[in-house]
């Protein structure tokens, strides 16, 4: 049955490899899929996350911190969403890019949403890589 559905039964016994794929996918968007041989899927997903992140930064969005309290408890939630972008989030934090709020720009709120959704979509891609790794998906 699983063979007919094209599921990866070999990886079922290697959950550590699946976790590694998920972690790699979180750190570098798309890498989890690429490591599993799904190059097209990984490249497209990674490029989409990157495009969303860059658009968000270009629109004047800023990254929230996990301990940010500028908008109450929601800020931490926003920070968690931003965290999903992996190396893009880490790099921006390290280089000080897209960290300053720019309310004077009409599109800054759009930018914030783009950045958060980039992170959330990368979380979804990472979980997809995990599912492929444990054989739940092909």
């Amino acid at each position, binding site marked *: 049955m699983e063979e007919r559905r094209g599921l990866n039964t070999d990886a079922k016994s290697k959950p550590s490899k699946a976790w590694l794929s998920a972690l790699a996918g979180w750190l570098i968007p798309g890498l989890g899929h690429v490591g599993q041989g799904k190059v097209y899927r990984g490249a497209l997903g990674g490029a989409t*996350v990157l*495009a969303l992140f860059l*658009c968000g930064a270009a*629109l004047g969005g800023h990254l929230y911190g996990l301990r940010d309290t500028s908008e109450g408890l929601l800020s931490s939630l926003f920070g968690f969403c931003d965290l999903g972008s992996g190396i893009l989030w880490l790099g921006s934090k390290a280089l000080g890019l897209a960290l300053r709020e720019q309310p004077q720009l009409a*599109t800054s709120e*759009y930018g914030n949403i*783009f950045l958060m*959704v980039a992170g959330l979509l990368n979380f979804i891609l990472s979980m997809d890589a995990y599912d492929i790794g444990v054989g739940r998906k092909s």
Partner: protein
Amino acid sequence: MRHFALMCLFASLVALVFAIVGREGERRRTLYALRVFLEFIGVGFALAWLLYWIPW
């Protein structure tokens, strides 16, 4: 107009990722991406009109 363009950009990028993880097969993915994109735009317009009539 710029807001609409941004909404279209956002919807197309999100639809792409949803299609990658949500469906198998090129044809099914394409159709699903198109459906998600149109749903985003439709819901965006519906909410915009709804909020237009709410005075606060």
